[in-house]
């Protein structure tokens, strides 16, 4: 694995508060790292320190070769251009030929269900749609490093799936991915390693030891409700430990219940 970035004793203080404390880490090409944790723990800061958008108070970030970073922020800001014009300008700034950029924008906007809104002024787009423009600008041309700061905020489920697929494709092509997120579903789908930042220190994220699942079931009204089941709209919700699922779910299915959804609780 080729080393591309070294974090050498990185410390970052804002006022009197130390957000990052002497962090040392080496990142290799194709790594996909996620930073999880509560608001203000330093997830976004570490992303910006890695990209040299924020200067550390102490320590240094070393790039072992020149790197092209692309960034998807949590809230993508609008500018006074249409989405198409903005993306074309970004393509030109990345050194893409006009026809190449046009083709790529068409493909990506179809993937993200954005074709009909491409000519709308960005200032009139909804938050979720703007976020899609933010995603497309970042993957228009393949970067060396992709920084994702809560990239899915406001996006619909179908676009989220497309996004996860695209990021995984890029990672297979050798793009290094850094993700700061609350959504563990995204972390599990994208990252190879996950870290939390506690008291300014990087710690390997350990997921909940006994995972629980939320199962949505639909019945015809005659079935017996098992203990712990609660009503949720037209469905019933059941919280089950992983070990219980294999035994209980077939039993419920045989009683006439139908599974309408299942989700790991920590996602």
């Amino acid at each position, binding site marked *: 694995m080729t080393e591309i970035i070294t974090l050498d004793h990185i410390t970052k203080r804002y006022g009197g508060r130390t957000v990052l404390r002497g962090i040392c880490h080496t990142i290799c090409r194709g790594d996909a790292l996620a930073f999880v944790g509560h608001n203000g723990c330093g997830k976004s800061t570490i992303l910006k320190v890695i990209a*040299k958008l924020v200067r550390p108070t102490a320590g240094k970030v070393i790039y072992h070769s020149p790197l092209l970073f692309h960034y998807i922020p949590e809230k993508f*800001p609008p*500018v006074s251009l249409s989405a198409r*014009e903005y993306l074309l300008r970004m393509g*030109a700034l990345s*050194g893409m030929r006009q026809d190449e950029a046009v083709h790529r924008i068409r493909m990506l906007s179809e993937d993200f269900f954005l074709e009909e809104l491409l000519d709308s002024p960005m200032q009139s787009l909804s938050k979720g749609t703007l976020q899609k423009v933010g995603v497309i600008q970042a993957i228009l041309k393949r970067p060396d490093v992709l920084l994702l700061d809560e990239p899915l905020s406001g996006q619909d489920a179908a676009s989220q799936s497309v996004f996860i697929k695209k990021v995984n494709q890029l990672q297979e092509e050798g793009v290094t991915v850094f993700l700061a997120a609350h959504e563990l579903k995204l972390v599990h789908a994208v990252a190879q390693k996950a870290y939390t930042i506690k008291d300014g220190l990087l710690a390997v994220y350990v997921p909940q030891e006994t995972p629980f699942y939320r199962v949505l079931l639909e019945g015809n009204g005659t079935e017996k409700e098992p203990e712990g089941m609660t009503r949720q709209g037209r469905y019933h919700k059941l919280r089950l430990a992983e070990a219980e699922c294999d035994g209980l779910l077939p039993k419920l299915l045989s009683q006439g219940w139908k599974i309408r959804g299942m989700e790991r609780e920590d996602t």
Partner: protein
Amino acid sequence: MKRIVELSNYQLRVYFKSSRFVMPFIVTVVFLAVLYSSRPVSIESSFALTCFLLFGVMAWAGYTFPSGEDTVMEQILFLRVKSGLIYYAGKSVALAAAAVLLSGFGILIPGVQWLLHGGMFFDRAAEVSDLLAALLLFPACSFAGGALGGLLHPVVIPERKCASLLTTLFVLLSVIRGPLVREIPFLRALFWVLPPVEGAASVYMGTQDALPARLTGYFAALFLYGVVYCVVKSLICFYKKI
């Protein structure tokens, strides 16, 4: 170089598609239309007034230029061009291009009047040196004004009311700097930081033979002031932001 051009192209498109340029544009056109509404017009004095107008309007435009900037969008652009030098050079080139575009009106409006009146618009026959004067003086004054307004960037002076007052003060002092220094000589030690715009009124004085040299010197001085302001602003922004 290509990325600088692309970045300045992007900055200009965003600027001209926003409402920020509308008022400076209207003020320039109205002022020039009034200035060139009756004839005969003195070339020397109308050119000097146009220089002061373009300097003031571009200082205004330079001051409002960064108000549409968003930190996150700047970070995206900064990473995309991979270099602080390219990023800030691109912004400075965009400002210079806006200055050239605006100064085009300073040439276009009297030029149209001159053509409409069959060359009998000014108080004397216009010469090639007058066109040269307009081509050198107007963009130089515009750029120096834009760079001066841009120097008071939100990162340099976050308090915007104070920045707008300072912009107005600097513009006025630049225009009256010559007479002030003659009255109070020690002000020269302070006022060298302001661009020598007041020289537009005196550039025609002296022998006609030396006019091209005076124009070139004046252009170079204003251009240099503009470049220095852009460099200072860029360095402050670079070191204060990250």
